């Protein structure tokens, strides 16, 4: 088993999927000879050629719409949106078509495709390169949403997403692309959509998060243990839709305290939905209000202020303190 970075695991998953299924095609900007701006598609054009690794004109609505037509007519496109903020021009295709082709046609037409979106901040990039686009689609039914936090899951979830019969928004924590390596099995395996992972067990509080902030939460959990002796249970949601409600609610019922962490703006984030779900299913178990750790209700700032905006372990620790000492 090789030790791979997260971006290598993505590359590996794409290669495995393309070898296995000739209907898998990649579309995006600069994904061919350049291998993608993050190198997710590095060298794939050498093996699969320009008909399957398709460098597109600079038009996200264009390749999203064309990919939808391809998916409807039998291919399995995997679209790379170069950065989260550039999903915006494709919004109409995503919101008004991608999400509802099966529903609208009562199953006659389907749209099995994956939209890969390098997501969130922390790499000190320019404006619009650090958005939390999961929340643009939270209230638009019909899209599965996946967010891995490590190389193993990234590969397994991406393969599962590509094999899924329905459209999947696949959000990749770009800040983790090269942050560390982990063991990734060779060849084909999947991590099923809709199953959260308890990445740290504990009984004092539940921390719910996904993507990059699984690591922020784990760091805070270690500090909480060291400083206060509190054992936090950290849950990596992995998939926002379908959501593993049983694991979430089971843990909150066990611990009686919950912290939700995501770096999206405060209002209307997935963290808000998690609080609403806890309200629906476990309110009477709560010893304290659920604590939200999130970005603020301002645009992601330019890079000198990124650290002010993005949640860090200190803010998660504060939230743990809040739910513990309420």
């Amino acid at each position: 088993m090789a030790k791979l970075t997260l971006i290598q695991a993505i590359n590996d998953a794409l290669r495995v999927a393309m070898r296995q299924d000739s209907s898998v095609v990649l579309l995006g900007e600069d994904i061919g000879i350049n291998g993608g701006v993050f190198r997710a598609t590095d060298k794939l054009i050498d093996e699969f050629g320009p008909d399957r690794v398709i460098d597109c004109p600079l038009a996200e609505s264009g390749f999203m719409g064309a990919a939808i037509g391809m998916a409807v007519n039998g291919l399995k496109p995997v679209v790379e949106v170069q950065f989260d903020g550039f999903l915006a021009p494709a919004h109409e295709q995503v919101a008004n078509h991608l999400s509802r082709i099966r529903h609208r046609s009562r199953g006659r037409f389907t749209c099995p495709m994956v939209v890969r979106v390098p997501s969130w901040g922390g790499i000190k990039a320019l404006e619009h390169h650090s958005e939390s686009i999961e929340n643009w689609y939270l209230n638009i039914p019909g899209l599965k949403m996946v967010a891995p936090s490590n190389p193993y899951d990234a590969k397994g979830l991406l393969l599962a997403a590509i094999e899924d019969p329905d459209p999947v928004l696949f959000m990749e924590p770009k800040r983790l692309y090269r942050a560390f390596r982990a063991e990734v099995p060779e060849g084909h395996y999947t991590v099923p959509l809709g199953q959260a992972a308890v990445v740290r067990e504990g009984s004092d509080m539940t921390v719910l998060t996904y993507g990059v902030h699984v690591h922020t939460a784990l760091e805070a959990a270690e500090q909480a243990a060291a400083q206060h002796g509190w054992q936090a249970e950290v849950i990596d949601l992995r998939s926002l839709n379908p959501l593993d409600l049983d694991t979430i609610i089971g843990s909150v019922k066990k611990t009686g305290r919950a912290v939700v962490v995501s770096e999206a703006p405060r209002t209307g984030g997935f963290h808000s939905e998690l609080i609403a779900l806890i309200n629906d299913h476990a309110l009477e178990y709560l010893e304290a209000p659920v604590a939200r750790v999130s970005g603020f209700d301002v645009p992601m700032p330019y890079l000198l202020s990124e650290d002010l905006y993005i949640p860090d372990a200190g803010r998660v620790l504060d939230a743990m303190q809040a739910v513990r000492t309420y």
Partner: protein
Amino acid sequence: MKVETALTRGEQLFPVRRVLQADGTLLEPLPDFLSHDVLKDVYRKMVFLRVYDQRCLNLQRQGRMGTFAPFSGQEASQVGSAYLLRPDRDWIFPTYRDHGAMHVMGVPLVNILRYFMGDEQGSRAPEGVNAFPISIPIATQLLHAVGAAWAGKLRGEDTVAVGYAGDGGTSPGDFHEALNFASVFNVGAIFFIQNNRYAISTPISRQFKAPTIAQRALAYDIAGVRVDGQDVLAVLTVMHEAIERARSGGGPTLIESVTFRYGPHTTSDDPKRYRAQEELEEWQAKDPIERLRRYLAAQGNWSDSDDEALWSAAREQVAAAVAEAEAMPRPSVDELFDYLYAEPTPNLLRQKEELKAYLARKEGGARG
């Protein structure tokens, strides 16, 4: 520096293709594929479309249907654009006004009625009929046509995909992106634009300044053509050429069909607010059905009684389809939840049960 050369020559560079004149006489000999049987069949289809379109207007006024978008006046485009396609191997991506083309492609009238009555089952084309559901968001479906044709090309098939839009449909960005992608990847998509001179109330002079839509083809270095949209033989001819081009790897075609809708934009619209009666009458004088009837009659084997029989048969078929559509049950609660994903998520199953429980309390579970 303004390049006068091509600009002011948009209309000369892209003359309107016409085969049959308003008086029913031919301008050029008919190509082989337009046999007399084909012409009669085309005529029959146009008549059927006119009858059901008018019937739907009435149904809507009687409250038996939701908002309806009529195409009367545009039958030559509806029939001519879809007639030569292979339903199972080619594709169409229609707008709300192209249910005529959908029907020609093989979608039963009952589906079209159910669609406008408000049932998603109406958007479910039969297996083997590649008619995509109606796309309401303007011009978005042109990209789907590009993708569908492209997928065929990548598999080595000679797929043709027709994307429909109106004159207004040339303004959104997706129009541009679709034509550019089709050009760059040389796919067998046909952009069939019905220029009926209005986008709801907005006249084409407010939609674009160039004298033709066809000249947009110049921007993408693709084939472009204008055609008389009241002349079904001309529409069939340019479609024949475009299909040949697509099948033989010659790439996309932009077709501007110059036409007119007789009725309102939809049943929610009052065209008197923005259109003069004279304009309507001028176009009615060029009626595509009447034009072909004159030709058939002049050929000597289409009598007035043949014609009457055809119209009344159409009315009967439509009446039967309406009865069938109205007899269908309302969509069930299961249908609301079960088609979003191949397998409903746990969340959706919970919500379905919640709704069923509520309905059971409220109305004794009458539905679903």
